[in-house]
Structure formats: C-alpha cells, structure tokens
C-alpha cells in the first residue's frame, strides 16, 4: 500500500527515520541533541518518545566518539544512524570516517561490514555563521569506501535515507539544510526505487546540460526556467548520488546536448565539480562543442552571512556560464 503526503524535506527525513526504526529494531539513532530536543533541525523529532531512549539517544559532545561508537555498534549487529550537528562539526570525526568507516569492509575482506549512516546537515544559504555552512562533500567523495549521497527533493530525501539505512555499506548522507523547508508530495511506503548510484534528469532540454546535486538543483532548475523564457532549452541532471557516480545517465545527457555546466556550492578546487568536468570530458570529449564550465563557490572560506549571496551559485552566474559555452550564434 502506497501513501502520499505533502512533506517538507525535514519532515520526509523524519519519516524515513521513523519508518526505518519501525521496520528494523537494529536501527538506532544518536548524536548531539537528537533526543528530547529532536535535533537542532528537528529531523529526529519524536523518535525518543516513540521508540524509547535505547533507540534514539543524546550522546556526549564528541563527534569522533559518536562515529567511533557507531562503528562498534555496526560491528555488533546494529544499524546506527548518527547525526553530525553541522557540516564543520563532522571534522573531528574525520579520522574515524576515513581510517575506519571507509576501510573496515576492505580491511577484513568483507568479514566486517559497517551498515551505518552519517547524516550531515550541510552547505549554506541559511545565513549561518562560520562552520555552519561548509560544503564538505569532496572530503568524503574522495575517500574510497564511502557512499556519498545528497538529496534535492523531499521524495529523494525519504527514498535515499531509507536506502542508506538499508545499505550494507556506510553512507555519508548530506542534507542540504537550505532545502529542509522545501515541500513536495512524497511517496511513503514500499521500498522506493533504487536511488543510490542513480542520477535523474529533472528537466528535459536540448541546448545544454546543467549538472547539479543537493542544494544546487533548485538553482539549476530555476536557471533552466529563465533560460527557457530567453529561448534556450536547458536540460537539468540531478546526481542524487555522488558516490557511486552515474556515468551512464550523466554522459548520455551531455552527449545529447553537447554542452554542459556543472553547478555546485563547494569551492571548486579539487572538488566534486572538478571530477564531474574531468570524467565527463574524458568520456564525451568529441561530443563537446565547448569546454564544460563550472559555477561553484569561490576558493575562499565560507563568507559571513551578509556576503554569502556573492559566493553561492545563482541563476545569473549559471546563465553567464551557459552564455560562455561558445554558441555559434554569438
């Protein structure tokens, strides 16, 4: 039986946690302030009340400890879902993530798997102060052994989180915090179609392809909307999953238009957007009429709130990059 409900992304994530906890007693949720408070973004709201303190609990304030304890629990039959309160506050857990979470299965030739999810409210656009707006996906995406996903819609948030929790592999689950309040009809029951590893074409278009993920998808869609009014047809691909990367969908899209712009909030240097440009160019070089452009955050620390609008990719910057794709008619 399938239920539809209009939910914000935050609510969809909350529902995904609830449904996963109800379906499997091995699923436990913990982190800072995830208990009675329900998390600073309320993503874990009501879970302690519904499932009890053993299933959803507050921990001491120590991210390496949180991730390290999750590793141990996953080794012993549980499916921990831990919350890092904000992107930059996952950095204390970096050693645990890179040296253990990512490597335990490989280290033990598959004998020890770590079915765990590290949820990270990430990226900017909410006027947050320092350390609360980092786009940290490159650090994880560069680390073999992790799955890295970033939903752009409430439906994907629900579906991908259910899938991440069910996965035998550790998943870094990046939640674009500026989209927590975006709403949509969400299909809630039954196991959703596989999303991890699958990109999706969000909008058809013929002139150029915008490649985006997480917080940049709405920007890309809006740019396509504006471009449409200006007579240019832009296709929009939403990666959903950074690792594994869906070369097939992305390359097919780019080949169909011959031009592409990558849109991502993170600083561009040595980033996921670099990878997209590199791998698509490697694979589609002779289909490209112009080099792929990147619209990304600058190579600077995340700016203070009053300046973040300058840093974040916006419709204008995307359209300028599109204009730059060496159109014959210009």
């Amino acid at each position, binding site marked *: 039986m399938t239920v539809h409900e209009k939910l914000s992304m935050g609510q969809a994530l909350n529902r995904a946690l609830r449904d996963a906890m109800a379906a499997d007693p091995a699923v436990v949720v913990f982190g*800072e*302030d995830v*208990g*009675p*408070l*329900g998390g*600073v973004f309320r993503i874990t709201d009501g879970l302690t009340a519904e499932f009890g303190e053993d299933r959803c609990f*507050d*921990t*001491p*304030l*120590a991210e*390496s*400890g949180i991730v390290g304890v999750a590793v141990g629990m996953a080794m012993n039959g549980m499916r921990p879902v831990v919350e890092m309160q904000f992107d*930059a*506050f996952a*950095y*204390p857990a970096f050693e645990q993530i890179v040296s253990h979470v990512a490597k335990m299965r490989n280290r033990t030739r598959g004998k020890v798997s770590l079915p765990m999810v590290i949820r990270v409210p990430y990226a900017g656009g909410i*006027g947050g*102060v*320092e*350390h*609360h707006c980092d786009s940290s996906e490159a650090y994880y995406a560069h680390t073999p052994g992790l799955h890295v996903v970033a939903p752009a819609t409430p439906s994907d948030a629900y579906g991908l989180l259910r899938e991440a929790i069910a996965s035998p592999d550790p998943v870094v689950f990046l939640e674009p915090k500026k989209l927590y309040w975006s709403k949509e009809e969400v299909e809630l029951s039954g196991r959703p179609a596989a999303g991890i590893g699958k990109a999706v074409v969000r909008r058809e278009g013929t002139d150029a392809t915008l490649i985006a993920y997480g917080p940049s998808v709405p920007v890309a869609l809006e740019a396509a909307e504006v471009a449409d009014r200006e007579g240019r047809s832009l296709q929009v691909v939403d990666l959903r999953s950074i690792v594994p990367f869906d070369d097939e969908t992305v390359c097919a899209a780019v080949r169909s238009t011959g031009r592409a712009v990558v849109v991502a909030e993170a600083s561009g*240097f040595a980033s996921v957007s670099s990878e997209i440009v590199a791998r698509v160019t490697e694979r589609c070089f002779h289909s490209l009429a112009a080099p792929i452009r990147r619209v990304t955050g*600058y*190579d*600077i*620390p995340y*700016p*203070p*709130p*009053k*300046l973040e609008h*300058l*840093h974040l990719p916006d419709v204008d910057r995307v359209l300028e990059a599109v204009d730059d794709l060496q159109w014959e008619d210009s």
Partner: protein
Amino acid sequence: MTGDAHHLLPSATPVTLIGVDGRAVRDELPDDAALLRALQGLITARRLNEQAYALVRQGRLAVYPSSHGQEACQVGAAQVLGDGDWLFPTYRDTAAIAERGVDPVEALSLLKGDWHCGYDPHEHKVAPHTTPLATQLPHAVGVAHAARLKGERTVVMALCGDGGTSEGDFHEALNFAAVLKAPVVFFLQNNEYAISVPLSRQTAAPSLAYKGIGYGIRSERVDGNDVAAVLAVLTDAVNRARAGEGPQLVEAHTYRMQAHTNADDATRYRTDDEVAAWVERDPIVRLEKHLRDRGLLTDDSLAEMRAAAEKTAEHMRDGINRDVEPDPHDLFAYVYAEPTTQLREQGAQA
C-alpha cells in the same frame, strides 16, 4: 610519585565566599574596590546580554548565545587578567570579551553577520570567539607556551563549557599544558547544559574538576554565581600559573538561564521550575545585597553603575543598528597574505 596526588583534587564542594543571602561565608573576600569593580562588571554584562537579546528580537543580530546568569564567570575571567595576559573565549563569552576592553559592537560582528571576527585579537589579547567546541584550548596552550619560550610572564585564560569538555581537543590541550607546564588557566563554565543535553548525559564524573588529576593539573571548584569566589579562585589560579606551577583547572558551577540561543526552545528539555530555582542564586542580586549590607553601595552609586551600563547598551544599539555594507573584496583579500592569481580572477568576477 603518587603520594601527593590528592592535592590535585578539588574541594568536595564548590568554594563559596558570599552566600545566596548576601552574607560572607568565609573571611577571604576580595577587597572592597575589587568587589565594586566586579559589581560594575556584572551590571554592564547583564545589560549587554539584555541589549543583545533585544537586538536579536529586532532582527539586528542573527543569533545570540547569552551568558545571562553566568555574568560572575564572565566578569571574573576578564578582571583577573593583566594587560599582557590573553583571553580565549567561546561564542557565549561576549560579555567577557567586552569586559576585557573589546568594543562590544566589534565583538558582535560575527553574530551580526558582517565578518567572522570584528576585532583585532592582538589589540586586547583576546582570541576570536571560537565556535568549534574546545578547539580554542590547544591554541591557548600554544600562546602560553610561546610566551614562556620568549621569557614573558603571560598567563592565558581559556574558557570552555561543560559540553566542550567531552571533545578530544579538551583532553589534548590539558595534557599538553601539563606536560609543557604552560601557564594556562582552564576555566570551565559548567552551566548544566550543552544545548539540550544535561550534565548527567555529558559526564559521569563526580564533577568536571575531577578531570584535572588525570593530567596532573591542580583543580578547584567554585560557585559560579558568586563573583567574589570566582575572583578569589581565579586569582589564585592565575598567580600559580604565573609563578610557574603549570596549568590550573577551575570549574564554576553556574546555570544557563536562557535558551541556548534565541533559536532554541528550552521548554523541550527542561522545566520552568528548574530554571526558577536558579533565579535566587542570581550573581548580581547577591553581590548588591552584600555590598549594601556592608554600606559599600548606595542607591546613588548603583544608579551610576547602571548609567554606565546603559552607555554600553546605547553604544551597542548605535553600532549594531548602523548598517555597514561589508566589502565584497574582503572575501578574496585575506585568504592569503597575497591573493593568488586564481583568487584575483575570481574576485574580479564576483
């Protein structure tokens, strides 16, 4: 080696000098001038907290983590320092930063959204207020150790919350300080909460001050709402650190009277009754009563103090309400001493 270990342990109960009723509990009070200076500090700090809170409601500050109720710690931490000393504050310690001499408008730049740190840390020897918990503590040790290598008699006051003590950096900083004999006073404001998480879920220790002995650091506990006691205990700690006895740990038992920040909803995790019980322990009421009882404070002198605090509030309103458009070029100018070619290109686009 371990025979004299117990001197590293704190008192079984927090040191109090002036009781809730305003009466001196012990004899060793700071002198009158110090107490009057402390009262002025408390009144100004409280006013600063209230003003900042109001500015949040008016939408002029994005967020404010208030030290309302913790003013004795804020004032004490700043007032025991000499000019050459350093203060390492957290996001909650704006009042201490201001008491140290930093313009509160500059100190609030972070929360106004103009720039990350609005003041020059070298000017008043106040580090930028630090958000990632406990990460300022190793910095404090480094400043202290560098001072020692340079032959300077600097003491560093490093602030940290109860929640912050759980982070690895807390542990590493205390251990480095002890091994290096760095003149740092680690001052823990145990306000019972880390956002929504109560102390009982943060630690199972008898109290946070019992962490010191594990590093070989002498530790003490103090009633954090008794500014006289805070001054006395911190002064002793600063003196010992300066005298070469190595780092010191002080835990102040206090309470966060308001929500974590205005964005927080404290009703989700604590009762009004719990909060109410702390109202009577207010640090200002207590000291006022004490000074009045001893005839050291009159309505007039109190009014003067309040007027001085009001000046600070007015200055804050003026400064925070003035919109200074931040300069976009600043985004690219300070990433490195010299902007790279790439940053110059990017700055030209932005």
